[in-house]
């Protein structure tokens, strides 16, 4: 089930939230757990078993961790890590690995597997890992209630596409949280904002991106248009989902950390990864980079640490060479920035140089998305060559003319919404009456757009989330 669907909006949402508010507080966790398992089963019932295996194993082993010290504790911890990573490996990467081996040794004994990928496995596995690691490091005690742990791992707002919620950030909220009128209202508005981003921007811009990436004779201009639209699509798709997740969590009394912070205004690639998918970046930073020594080691070791982190980041995103190359390339750029100290020095540069580097950052990000979107490295290379007119293609064609005119309003709106323009204006004109009027108009517009989003869903039936494959 996706949030931006009619069955979620008119069936799941009113029933789950309605009953939640009617139930006594001590029963609500059980209800939300049940609803979360139902939510997950909607896509494929059999994968609920996988979810429950994850919950049971982490519950039992974490409790054991709490009881043990020394080597016993280490062994249980490693065992639990292996279970979590093992499940992720089997369901997400086995097909890729067997495919590589089979292609290398076609006459060999290894056959290609075709294991179905459980939706959201990367997200809930990383949540489970963060719980186990925090228990091992004694940051938090093991959860005594299996229902509460199950709730944490399977909580439906962030189950299948994040944000990756740290156990330590919600441990108190699991057992004691309040739903206020203000919180509920802001949560619902946040949900609606995310809903609108997904349906009105991401889904519509996807039409241009899909056309470009599926096109055989791609003109340079259309290649750029497609890349731009995909960059906006993936931003609104993912940040929209995060908004919906955060909003729904707030309506249930949970406060999740922000996952996106206008990443396209970043001055450097390093900054981009502090604004994009913040929960993932911080997860790798805290659970991989810092334990490896982080940057408090010799330069050579730091470079290796960063490469490991970015290789894993690429692998996390998918079982394809494109993701691996994408991750490694980002790693190399971030390493270069770190070694040259650009992130720290850039504010002192002349404005023209800052703009040039900002543009360079944006272009790198966009080329990265081309790689990310492509089915293969070959396709990505051809696409990028097309962007520069280097694949026997024309500069401009009818498709560019039509699509640029047809989608111009959405491209402009998308570009504006990708920046914190309204926040900047609010900060500049803070306290002025017209800002309040504009804010209130903004709320009303949200409702108008919400109706438009529902209308679009009614007219269409298909709107897959990009990050569902992770």
């Amino acid at each position, binding site marked *: 089930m996706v949030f931006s669907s009619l*069955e979620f*909006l*008119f*069936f799941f949402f009113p029933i789950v939230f309605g009953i939640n508010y009617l139930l006594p507080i001590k029963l609500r966790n059980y209800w939300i757990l049940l609803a979360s398992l139902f939510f997950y089963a909607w896509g494929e019932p059999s994968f609920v078993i996988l979810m429950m295996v994850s919950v049971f194993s982490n519950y039992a082993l974490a409790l054991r961790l709490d009881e043990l010290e020394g080597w016993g504790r280490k062994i249980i911890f490693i065992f639990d890590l292996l279970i979590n990573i093992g499940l992720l490996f089997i369901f997400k990467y086995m097909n890729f690995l067997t495919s590589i081996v089979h292609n290398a040794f076609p006459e060999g004994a290894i056959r290609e597997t075709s294991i179905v990928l459980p939706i959201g496995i990367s997200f809930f596995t990383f949540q489970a890992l963060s719980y186990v690691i925090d228990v091992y490091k004694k940051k938090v005690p093991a959860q005594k209630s299996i229902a509460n742990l199950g709730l944490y791992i399977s909580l439906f707002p962030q189950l299948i596409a994040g944000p990756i919620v740290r156990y330590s950030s919600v441990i108190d909220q699991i057992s004691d949280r309040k739903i206020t009128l203000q919180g509920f*209202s802001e949560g619902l508005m946040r949900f609606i904002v995310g809903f609108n981003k997904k349906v009105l921007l991401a889904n519509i811009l996807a039409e241009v991106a899909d056309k470009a990436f599926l096109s055989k004779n791609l003109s340079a201009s259309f290649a750029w248009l497609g890349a731009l639209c995909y960059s906006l699509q993936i931003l609104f798709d993912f940040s929209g989902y995060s908004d919906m997740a955060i909003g729904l969590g707030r309506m249930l009394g949970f406060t999740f950390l922000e996952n996106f912070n206008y990443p396209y205004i970043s001055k450097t690639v390093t900054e981009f990864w502090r604004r994009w998918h913040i929960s993932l970046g911080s997860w790798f930073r805290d659970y991989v980079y810092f334990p490896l020594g982080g940057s408090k080691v010799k330069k050579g070791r730091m470079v290796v640490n960063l490469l490991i982190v970015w290789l894993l980041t690429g692998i996390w995103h998918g079982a394809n060479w494109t993701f691996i190359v994408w991750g490694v390339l980002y790693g190399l750029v971030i390493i270069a920035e770190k070694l040259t100290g650009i992130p720290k020095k850039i504010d002192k540069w002349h404005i023209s140089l800052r703009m040039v580097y900002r543009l360079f950052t944006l272009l790198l990000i966009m080329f990265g998305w081309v790689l990310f979107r492509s089915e293969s490295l070959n396709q990505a290379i051809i696409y990028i060559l097309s962007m520069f007119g280097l694949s026997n293609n024309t500069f401009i064609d009818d498709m560019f*003319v*039509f699509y640029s*005119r*047809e989608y111009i309003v959405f491209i402009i709106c998308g570009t504006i919404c990708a920046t914190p323009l309204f926040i900047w204006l609010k900060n500049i004109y803070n306290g002025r009456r017209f800002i309040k009027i504009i804010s209130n108009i903004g709320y009303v517009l949200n409702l108008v757009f919400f109706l*438009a989003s529902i209308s679009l869903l009614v007219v269409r039936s298909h709107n897959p989330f990009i990050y569902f494959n992770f």
Partner: protein
Amino acid sequence: MDQKKRDYGVIIIAFISLALIVFLSINNFSLSKDPIDKFLKGERTFSETVEELVNKYSSDKLKYKYDFVNYCGLFLRLSGRRAFNEATLLNNGMLTWGAGTFQRDIRNQKRNADAIFSFSNWLREHDIPYTFVMLPDKMDMNGTLLPVGLKNTLNEEANQFVNYLYEKDVQCLDLRPIMTETAAQVSDYFYRTDHHWNIKGAFKAYQIIMRYLKEKDIITDTTNIDESLWDIHEKEDWFLGSRGKRVGTLFAGTDSLMWYTPKFTTNQSCIIPNKRQIFKGDFATSNIREKYITTRDLFTLNPFCVYIGGDYPLVRHINPSAGNKKRILILKNSYVLPLQAFLSTSFEVVDVIDPRHYSSSSIAEYCDWYKPDYVFTIIYPNSLDDKCYFSMGENKVADHNNEWEIILDAYDLKMKDNQKDYHYAKIPVKLEAGNEYMFSFASIDRIKGESDGVSVVLYNFTTKKVIFENLFDVDCSENPENNKWFIKMPEKISNGDDYRLLVYDGIRGKTKGTSINIEDIQVLQR
């Protein structure tokens, strides 16, 4: 204080949104009731229930669905969109197909042209003249109506096809340069929100075809093409066409419904065998379907079908008082619905086959049996994609050295009303798979009841299935040539199939209260 005002703004809008969600949920709650009931009873698995729920919420049963479609159309129109949900807004404000339909790789039309050439030759060998009529697409010939950047390749394909026909000397009447040379003509002859031409366009085509036939000395009487002999009726804001239903009324508006009825006297019948319907009376009774004129339902009715009612495998128009005592066969698509009604005023018999739905025989076999005086294929450029229009089955017509052999002769049937809806009599011959038969009779007398038709059915008693069905007009015995039904038997599948002809004293399912006598039934085998 200001912060508090701001907070109430969020709260108010949030609760309005919540009220909207709850309102729509309550109104659509019934969609989930049936799937959940079945799941709880164990009649469906969880996955099946999920699939059914998703389908229900995507279906036309969703409450306020059409209001949302309209709102969506308005929203996208205001945002400058011109192409959405397989509809494209032309520069003249009309809607046509989505780009996926009219902007495709141009396919070589030689094979299609060769098929028509072969069919045309086969008809010529059987002394049946033939013309391929290329209908206009909803696009001017220069494609100026499209948004910048889009291109119509359908007309290019059609040009290629028509040129091949001309090269091979096949008779071809291309209506496109006559009816859609300019954008103004498109506006004149087509519906705003539907991909079809309007009634004015269909009548124009009727005039052109009749003049064409007169020039070729096929017919003599073209009186009825004078538009002053027709009453023109109109209902405004009555019709949301095929494209309009996809984008709502606020994207490109709605259409008026126009229909023509003759001022001159008419008495004809329209027989639709697979629907077991006979419409008998004047032109309006025979050809016009009242519900499209009396009921306005923009999203679920299709008033383009005001003439004839829809696309059927076979429709037969019989008009004994027509000025041209000819029988014509039209191989058509949906454009022809109003056109065939107009043609029915000018010809004694108009047989209309829709090859997309017709499967009782090959087209060539049909021509061999009924020997029409003229055959047309009347389609528009988008149909060049449809193989059924280019597969006539000439090779299926056996080289007959044998003529028909009589296996039942001079058989009289008296059927008295037995107060049952499916009262039939079995013709006392057994039919064999793979053969050809002709069923005919001299006359039908209606003794009792109001039924205008008689059903004759090929029935398989082994499988208990109706194979083919034909309808006869009770009064059509004025011309015995019309009292024939040719049957191409199915190929043998298994031993022991018991095929019989059954005659119903009335329309099948409505035989209660009727009695008929049928004289001189004959069954021939070839």
